[in-house]
């Protein structure tokens, strides 16, 4: 029991710290939301019109009062699940805005993560099983090359080749003409619009999984139960899958949970580049515009995402590894 209380306390504590930092970080940045809004409407190099700034301030009701009082209000609102009104998307509620964007990101990210995880596990395991062969070399070296390219670099090539030279896929936005909803036209558009962002992610993400899997797998291949399995005269397939891979999978799976939790933060660049209407782009805008309410909530979302993922990872490990089932801690 003490153990769980402790773990829970840790969770809550971290959450609190994160919430507080999320509150502070945007606020200690120089710059005033109202000014930024006006400037954003007038273009960067404009002489701020005092009247407009004044109007904007009173419209956005940008925070006044001491940081303390702001902080307490903020905490209070959080407890009531009230995340406030976005500046960038005024007069819409932060919750509305995020509600619109979240599905795009979840869709894009979850799908790509699952795919690249699958790729990683398969290739990694295969490379390990056939280690020190040409194939192993190809997989490892190949994935390293690709994986070390900067995402925007890849995006560059993709847009250039598929977007324009070949004109196969649109390069900006999430959809165009169709009306959102469960209709073929829309789904079709969503898929074609998501292709390039997804590809970009798919090229950079698997490498980690591949190498990780390869390493743990090779490590396991040295274990006695593998030697015994071989001595038992089991088919390579069985040895590779049931004995080696099955064990090597464990760390990766928990890692995967964490990855899923962390993704929201990671998509900012790609989403901005492709003007993809997801949380990543929101985060980008929120940061530019000092959109405290939006930024706070997004950061809260990401951080809790990671925290929860951590918990899930723990539990998952318990389920997957019988040794961990009893006596965690």
């Amino acid at each position, binding site marked *: 029991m003490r153990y769980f209380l402790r773990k829970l306390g840790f969770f809550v504590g971290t959450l609190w710290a994160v919430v507080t930092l999320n509150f502070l970080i945007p606020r200690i940045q120089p710059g005033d939301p109202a000014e930024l809004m006006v400037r954003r409407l007038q273009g960067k190099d404009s002489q701020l019109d005092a009247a407009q700034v004044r109007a904007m301030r009173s419209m956005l009701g940008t925070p006044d009062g001491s940081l303390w009082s702001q902080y307490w209000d903020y905490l209070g609102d959080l407890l009531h699940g009230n995340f406030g009104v976005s500046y960038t998307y005024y007069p819409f509620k932060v919750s509305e805005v995020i509600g619109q964007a979240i599905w795009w990101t979840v869709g894009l990210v979850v799908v790509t993560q699952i795919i690249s995880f699958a790729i990683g596990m398969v290739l990694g395991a295969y490379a390990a099983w056939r280690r020190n062969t040409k194939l192993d070399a190809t997989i490892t070296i190949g994935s390293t090359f690709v994986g070390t390219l900067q995402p925007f670099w890849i995006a560059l090539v993709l847009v250039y080749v598929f977007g324009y030279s070949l004109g196969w896929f649109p390069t900006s936005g999430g959809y165009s003409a169709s009306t959102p909803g469960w209709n073929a036209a829309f789904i079709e558009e969503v898929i074609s619009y998501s292709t390039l962002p997804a590809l970009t992610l798919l090229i950079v993400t698997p490498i980690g999984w591949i190498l990780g899997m390869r390493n743990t797998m090779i490590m396991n291949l040295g274990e006695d139960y593998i030697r*015994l399995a071989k*001595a038992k005269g*089991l088919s390579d397939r069985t040895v590779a899958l049931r004995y080696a891979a099955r064990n090597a999978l464990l760390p990766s799976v928990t890692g995967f949970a964490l990855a899923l939790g962390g993704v929201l933060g990671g998509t900012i660049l790609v989403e901005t580049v492709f003007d993809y209407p997801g949380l990543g782009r929101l985060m980008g805008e929120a940061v530019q515009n000092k959109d405290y309410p939006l930024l706070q909530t997004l950061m809260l979302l990401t951080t809790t995402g990671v925290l929860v993922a951590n918990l899930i990872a723990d539990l998952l490990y318990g389920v997957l590894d019988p040794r961990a089932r009893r006596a965690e801690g």
Partner: protein
Amino acid sequence: MTGSPLLEVKNLEVRYEPKRARSMTAVQDVSFDIAPGEFVGLIGESGSGKTTLATALLRLLEKPGRISAGSITFDGTDITHLDQDELRDLRWRDLSTVFQSSMNSLNPVIRIEPQFRDAIEAHSDLRGEAVSERVRELFDMVFIDHRFITSFPHELSGGMKQRVNLALALALDPKLVLLDEPTTGLDVVVQHSILENVRKLQEEKGFAVLFISHDIGTVLDLSDRILVMYAGRIVESQPAGELLREPMHPYTKGLLGSYGDPRAETVRITYIPGRPPDLSLEHQGCAFAARCPEKIERCLTDYPELLPRSAGDVACHVAQQSGGTRHFDGPEFVKSADDSERAREREVVLTVDNVTKVFEKRRGLKVERTEAVTDASFVLHKGGVTALVGQSGSGKSTLARMITGIDSPTEGRIVFHGPDGDQQVSSFRGRALRDYRSHVQMVFQDPYSALNPTKRIGQILERPLVNFHGLKGEERRRRVEELLETVALTPSDRFVNRYAYELSGGQRQRVVIARALAVLPEVIVADEPISSLDVSIRAEILELLNDLVQTHDVGILYITHDLLSARMLADDVIVLNEGRVVEQGPALQVIRDPQDDYTRTLLDAVPNPF
């Protein structure tokens, strides 16, 4: 042994050829055969190449190791170069094995039954229920409750795991079972029963066994025939009886010499000085010559072939001519009854008074209370040795923890009668604890992890001198050398600048002891100080410890599972079982006329060839 042999090994040579390190010949020109149903023991100390040999026989060698010469013929077929697919049908059905490290030779994430099932289904037509039936039979064979069939490996105790492995090995009634140190790492008592089990099954089923062990004691009474391996070669091969009666190779004699009967009035055990040769280096002549008391000129120049003599074969020039004595006339550690008489009158340096220790271990939600030590009481005499004998879980290490001030008792008290009066150990914190340690030191079980691999011997020995005696420069250097001399690492200057990995196990343990001595402690707690050393050199360390007691007048708490060594070293013996002191008294008395059953079981478990 008639008819064609089941396994026939001819001039087998295994080489390790790593890309970077020097390549070496781990197994050299090894030839022997095993008849169907024969029980063959293979004795060899660490580095003798026995495990490599086993792996080679199973064709499980992995790069950089390879069979570089010779042949292995199993049941008529030459399997030396058979490829894995062809090997597969022969594996397990004809040739199965139990690995040395029983602890993780079962797949941790799969239940036990499927691990039987896949093997059985891979090699037989049994399916479904039939398999489960078979598994139950097998479990019965090794006396394990059926409910464990469906549990995960980690839910079994070490002993059970090893029994399961044994059962697994027998799953398909193989012709030959290769047991590689099957019981190492298990309690003596457990070891004993498992070996009995093996022996019985072997008689019933009549499969042949190649039993590999470092411990000649365990093998002797099981085997029909025994092969002795040294430095990658077989140096002697004799039927067990003959080998025991008249060992021919000096090395064999040495091994036998390291056993004694703890009950005897006077026990003398020998040890083989020095260390096995480095196989990656070219060397000529007899590999054992360097450590051999009987060596003659020839031994240094040309290698003695393994030639028939009397009941078996031996590779030794001396043996071939004279045969020499049965007794290994190398160094010897003698302990006679009356030694132990002294010291009992010496003043008490530490008192353990009705000590009880309870651990609270968290298992998920519920807290498990384990009583590691219950109401233990005894005293340590200045310049005397008290042996704390017991198996794992007997709480002996927990006692050590409390005595060294790492833990404090839940009940009762431990009092140290030091220079500055009586002090209760449990009260020590921070500085006080640190000072206390200038009076009480430790010698660890595993000299390999007890010395920091990144430090030179000199540096290691300096630290306590600096910390406790604030010695500097010249003085400090002299003291370090002194210490090395005391533990017979001479000439000392050869060692001060060595790293631990350059030393042999025995030498390391000496360094560990030297470090313990550095602060001139009143008490040394020695936790299984010899158990991880080769049999042939254990006596060496025992003797050293013994001398220390005499010369340095320090009290030693000697923690062990092995009554023989206890007898050799201790004045008093305290037998611990499940945290309780079941018996204590003068060593000889306890051993000769044990009052408690547990003590007797322990005694029976002592491997005793004689």
